[in-house]
Structures are given as C-alpha cells and as structure tokens.
C-alpha cells in the first residue's frame, strides 16, 4: 500500500469532517448544540451540485453555503428565539434536509437519488511535484477547498481566542446571564454561532458532491455531520483539536477503503471502522473534555 496515497486520501476524507467540525465549534461555543449539521451537509451537497450544474462550481459553492445558512436560520429561530429543545430542532432539520433534497432532485433532474455529473473547481498542482514521484499523490490534484479549510483552522483559533467577537461568543456559551448584564447581545451571538456552523457545513456538503464525487448522491454524507460533532468534542471544542480529530477520522475512513481491496474480513465490518472509532472515542474521551458551561441550555431572559 502506498503511504503517500493513503495520507492524501486521509486528507480528502478529513476535509468535510473538519469543515463541519469547525462550524460546530462556533455553534457550541455560543451554547447551541447543532445536531442538524448532518442535514446542513445534505442540503449543501444537493444545492452545491445543483448550482454547479447550472452555473458552474463557484456559484455551486455559494448556493451550498446559502442552503446551509437557511437551515441554520431555522435552527436558530427554533432553538434560540423560541427555545425549542436543540436536539429536537436539529433532528427535525435532518429529516427536512433529506426529504427536501430528494423532492427537489426528483423535480429538477427527474432522478430522486442522484444528479448528473457536475464540475468541481480547478485542482492545484504544486510545481515540481513530478520530481518527487513518491510524494506525487500528496502534491497534485489538490482541491482549493482543502487549502481553504486548513487555513480556516488558525483563522478560527484567532477569531475565537483573540477577537472581541470570539470573547463574546465564548461568554454567551459559558454564562449568558453574565454576558447579558454586561451588555452583550446574547441572541445575536448565538445566531452568529449557528449561522457560521450552517455555512461551513453547507460548504462541506458541496465539497463532497463537487470535489469528491462529482455529483450529488442521496445519502452521500453517510453520517459525517455526526462524526464531525464527535470530532469537535474529541477536539475539546477547539479548532486545532477538531483538526487532529478530523485527521484521525479521515485516516480511519480511507483505511477502511483500502483494506477492503484485499481482505478476508467481510466488507461490512471494514466499513464500520470509522463509526466504531467514533463510538470508542466518544465513550473513552468525552468525560475528559469540558463543554462550554451553558452548552445546550436555551437562554431565557428572566429579570433576576
């Protein structure tokens, strides 16, 4: 097995998880659990493919992010403004995303479960890659989204830890009452966190459809939204932690592909590796990590 190839594939697998996990960091640091990320990825993948089919990849990505944001707005209205249980609202979104994508696909492409082939972005080749054949898989055919995503890690670290926005976002997730009495607009911060998570999850879905597969296929997210949540938790609610965790999950996934090719173990068991890993990681590490103190708790402005 070619190591560089395995690594390159790990990276490609990690990207959608990482993007979504980064979004989850914003949402959860503001105190909103977003289990609807899976649904936001689904609409991202469908609307991304749709946009790209008609207007090309750039529009595709924009439309995908918008679709994620639209779902996020619903989540924010339900769970922040109307204080619906955040899990319930998120699960409802996942169902909505699944159903609406299937419906739209049937209506527009006359196929319920796939779209035609769509274009992705122009891939980047690092100059001189040909001279190091061994590393070639890592240095050629890189999607610009991969680079953007990797850059988003330090950018997010900066935003969350160094900026006024980040301080207030974290404050709202830790103790919204305290933040409120200091004049921080709790609702605005929570909306911001949720919307950013929708945007990034939509982008992640579009990456899957346009960069990874070249078309939308129903069920192509395969629970990556949930794995991203696990990655965010495993990464202790930090962007760089999410990076490490996503790489681990991406590695497990690409490993599961490769092992399939020549193995005695039934294919179904191999496919379970990433999910088993998720379970083990969550069961083993969650207790050691510390969520924001007011994560998942709707904020009621109760005078005193």
């Amino acid at each position, binding site marked *: 097995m070619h190591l560089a190839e395995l690594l390159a594939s790990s990276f490609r697998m990690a990207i959608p998880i990482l993007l979504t996990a980064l979004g989850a960091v914003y949402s959860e640091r503001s105190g909103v659990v977003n289990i609807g990320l899976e649904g936001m990825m689904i609409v991202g993948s469908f609307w991304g493919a749709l946009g790209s089919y008609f207007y090309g990849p750039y529009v595709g990505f924009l439309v995908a992010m918008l679709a994620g944001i639209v779902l996020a707005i619903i989540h924010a209205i339900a769970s922040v403004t109307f204080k619906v249980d955040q899990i319930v609202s998120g699960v409802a979104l996942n169902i909505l995303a699944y159903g609406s994508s299937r419906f739209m696909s049937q209506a527009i492409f006359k196929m319920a479960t796939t779209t035609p082939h769509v274009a992705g972005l122009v891939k980047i080749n690092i100059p001189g890659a040909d001279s190091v054949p061994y590393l070639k898989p890592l240095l050629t055919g890189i999607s610009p989204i991969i680079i953007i995503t990797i850059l988003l890690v330090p950018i997010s670290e900066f935003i969350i830890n160094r*900026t006024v926005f980040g301080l*207030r976002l*974290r404050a709202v997730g830790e103790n919204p009452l*305290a933040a409120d*009495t200091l*004049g*921080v607009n709790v609702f605005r911060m929570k909306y911001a966190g949720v919307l950013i998570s929708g945007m990034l999850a939509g982008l992640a879905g579009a990456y899957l459809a346009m960069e990874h597969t070249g078309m939308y296929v129903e069920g192509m997210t395969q629970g990556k939204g949930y794995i991203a949540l696990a990655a965010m938790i495993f990464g202790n609610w930090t962007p760089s932690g999410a990076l490490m965790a996503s790489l681990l999950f991406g590695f497990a996934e690409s490993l599961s592909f490769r092992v399939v090719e020549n193995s005695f173990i039934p294919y179904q068991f191999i496919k379970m590796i990433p999910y088993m890993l998720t379970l083990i990681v969550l069961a083993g590490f969650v207790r050691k990590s510390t969520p924001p103190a007011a994560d998942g708790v709707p904020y009621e402005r109760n005078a*005193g």
Partner: protein
Amino acid sequence: MINAVEVKNITKRFPGVTANDRINLEIKRGEIHAIVGENGAGKSTLMKILSGLYQPDEGEIYIFGKKAVISSPVKAIEMKIGMVHQHFMLIPRFTVLENIILGSEIRAGISIDNKKAKKIVEDLCSMYNFSINLDSRVENISIGQAQRVEILKVLFRGADILVLDEPTAVLAPQEVKELFLNLRRLKQEGKTIVFISHKLDEVLDIADRITVLRRGRVVGSAVPGEITKEQLARMMVGKPVLIDLKKRETDPGEVLLSVKNLRVKDPGGKSVLNGISFEVKGGEIFGIAGIEGNGQKELAEAIIGLVNIDSGSIKIRNIDIKGLSVNQIRKMKVAYIPEDRHKNGLVLPMKVWENEIMGFQRDDKFYKKPLLKLKSAQDFTRSKIREYSISVSSINQAVEDLSGGNQQKVILARELSENPDVIIASQPTRGLDIGATEFVHEQLLKKRDEGKAILLISADLEEVLALSDRVGVMYNGSIIAEFKPGEITLEDVGIYMLGGPEKKVSGE
C-alpha cells in the same frame, strides 16, 4: 450637595406580595450607606431596581439629581451605577482580565488590545489597593478574590455608585477586613457605596448611615455611634431580639458519627482531604472552622455519600457507610444542609411544597402507591411555613422567587423535620437575618440537647465558637487544630485558619 441616589415613592409588587412599598431613600454622594432588614424585607428588590434588573411599578429615581429611568443593567452602568450581585456573575473558565473587560473590550481592529486593557485594570487595582492576578482563571481563585473581580468589573465601566448585595456573606473574617479596606478606599476616591448585610457588627463598623426596611417599607434610619446593635436589631424585627445564646451543659452520649483517616480526591485526582479523623457524640456539636475551599465541602459530601471515599472510613452509629447510596445514608437518619442551596439544596423552578418534601416523597406520610398524597404534603408544608415563619405568597410559588433567607428556611424545615440523629449543617445561616439566624441556632442547640450529633461547618467563626462543644480548624484538607471554645482566642483561631503554626491534633 446633591444626592447620588434619591428614590421617591418606589413601589414594586410581585404576585401576592408588595416587595417595596412606597420607599423613600436618599443616598449622599461619597457615603457608605447600609440597608438592613429581615429576610424578604425587600432589600435585594430595591437594589435590583437601582441596577436595572427590575422596573418599579410606581415611583421615581434621581441619580445625581437627574431623573432616571433605569431600564436595563447596561442603562444602569451608563448612569454610573454598578451592581455586585449576591450570586457572582462570573465566567469560571475565563481569566480575571477577560471577565473584567467582557462587553467593554478595548479594541485594536477586530481583536482585543489585551495590553492596553491590562494596563487600565492594573491602574485601577493600584489606585484602590486591590491585589489580584489578572491572568489567573476565575475557577482557580478564592471567593474573596472573585468578589474583587466583580467590583473591578463595575469600576472598569466607570461606576460611581456601587451596589453590593450581601458582599460579606461568603467571606472569611480576614477577607471581610480586606473588603472593608477596599470600600473605605473607594469612598475616599469619591465613590458612593450602597451595601446590604445581615451582620450588624459589620454594618455598624463600616456604614456612614443605615436605612432599615421591614416588609417592604422604610421603618427608620440610623447613624452608627448613635445606636446600639440591640436597638438596630429591634428596629429591623419590630420587637426585642435576644442576641446571646444560652447553652446548657450536656453529657455527650455514644459516638454517632465517626470519621477515620478519611482521604478524598477530586475528579482531577488532586487530594482534597488528607486523612481526616474525628468523632461526634450524641448531644454534641462539633464545629469545623476554616476558610472555605479547604475541604469542608468534600467532607460534608463524603459523609452524605455524594463523593467517593479514597481511603479511610465513615461510620454512622458504628455502621460503615462505604458503598451506600445517598438515599440509604439519609434513611439512617442523617440530615444534610448543603452549603450551596441553589445547587444542592433546592430545585429552584419547583414549588415550595415540592421542595419541602423532597427526599421524603416516598415516606408513607406523603406517598400511597402510586400517587403522592397531595393534601398531606401541602398540609405539612403549611405547618412548616408557620413553624419556621417562612415568608411565601403561596405554597405553589416557585422556590426561585423566594428571598435568599427564605430559601434557606425551606431547606432547614425539611432537613430537621424527620428527627435526624446526625445533622451535617454546612453554612446553615448564610444569608439569614438575625432573627432567623437565632432561630437556626436555637434549633441546632435544641437538637443537641435532645442527644443528636451535629457537625457544624461554617465560615462564620463567631457562629462556630458560640455553638460548638469542640472545634476543629480545617486547612488544606486537614484538621490542623482542635480545641474547646474558650480555650483559645479568636485571633489565634484566625491564625490557624490561615494555615497557622502546626499543632498536634488531639486524639491522634
């Protein structure tokens, strides 16, 4: 000279109660003004009106001579009024500096100018003699320091009027001294301070003027030096209050609670109790003095079964409680008055009567499978409300709407009702007015005289010395001194509370 605050005919009603009834109050610029009154008298309500958390139903407020509508805490701070809450509003995981600047950050583009912010806060600290490390996380600092953070928060926002609701209730004697130094310094710099306390000695020590509230009304005002503690207490309660406790001689009986070499680790694996041993006999109060956070909480929680014992043993009536559930331990007639009533003692959104029977809901008295006996539960609650004079508007009121002191009474009434043999009382009078404090003290002494064993944990040194038959001082997870009240001076106990010269623990 204009008044800093002038309150005219302020009325605030809650369902079933008029918390503030046509209140008139003048607070002069640059004075320390104390507000005293029984639990539920309306002190916190008035302060919350001043700081924008509540809106008055009637009346007017003038700040520095100008009519003011204080519609939110942010508005209040714009008018230079800063509130230091009874329950801290801090973010444990943030640093001291982050807590102080939140909401009023000094910006450099989109990021925070930490250097500049730090400089400003450091200047404030040196101006008012506050000592605190701005980079420590709030979860790692002491309660006294957390309070300083709260004060710095409002100073940073330019407050000229500081409102402090029971700031000393959670502090050790040394910390109170330090706070008062800070307050006097603030006064020197021209700040106006409004402050609430149930401890009349403190009030007489620090205040320039005192206003007394009773049942929502101003019933008088006083100037320290012209009034004695007894007179002040009488003004608050409306009848003479006796302040000296009479303690009978008793003959301690058999050992009901024995703790041997108890070691406990916190979830992070840090040792919080390092081999504690003591015994409490029936008819005896064993007091534990010490600054909070030296293992007292873990000790109480180990005895009631809330934390796991690392090694050593705890015996109730000679039965080892290792591995027993909280419920099983309570069934052995152990009562527990927790130090944090909001976290452990009550379920805040639930009703008074529900809280009153909580933990006993399966007793035959209240339970007939599969239903609760509503009537007997509610009758029971009514009788407790009378017995402990708890002021509620109805037994269906949510406990979170009661005043702090009345919440504590709800717990006491419940815990002492089932005739326990062993009573773990953690900070039992925190936040109680003198009448209620005296009542609790009497109850504890009564239980002692009836032959019960009482473990009294309190940061209030005078309380410990007044009630206990024997006293242990806890420091850093150990009992570093043990003595009988009267054997040792208050100052010496204070030294032990700060770690003091090592002394051999008697009985070891």
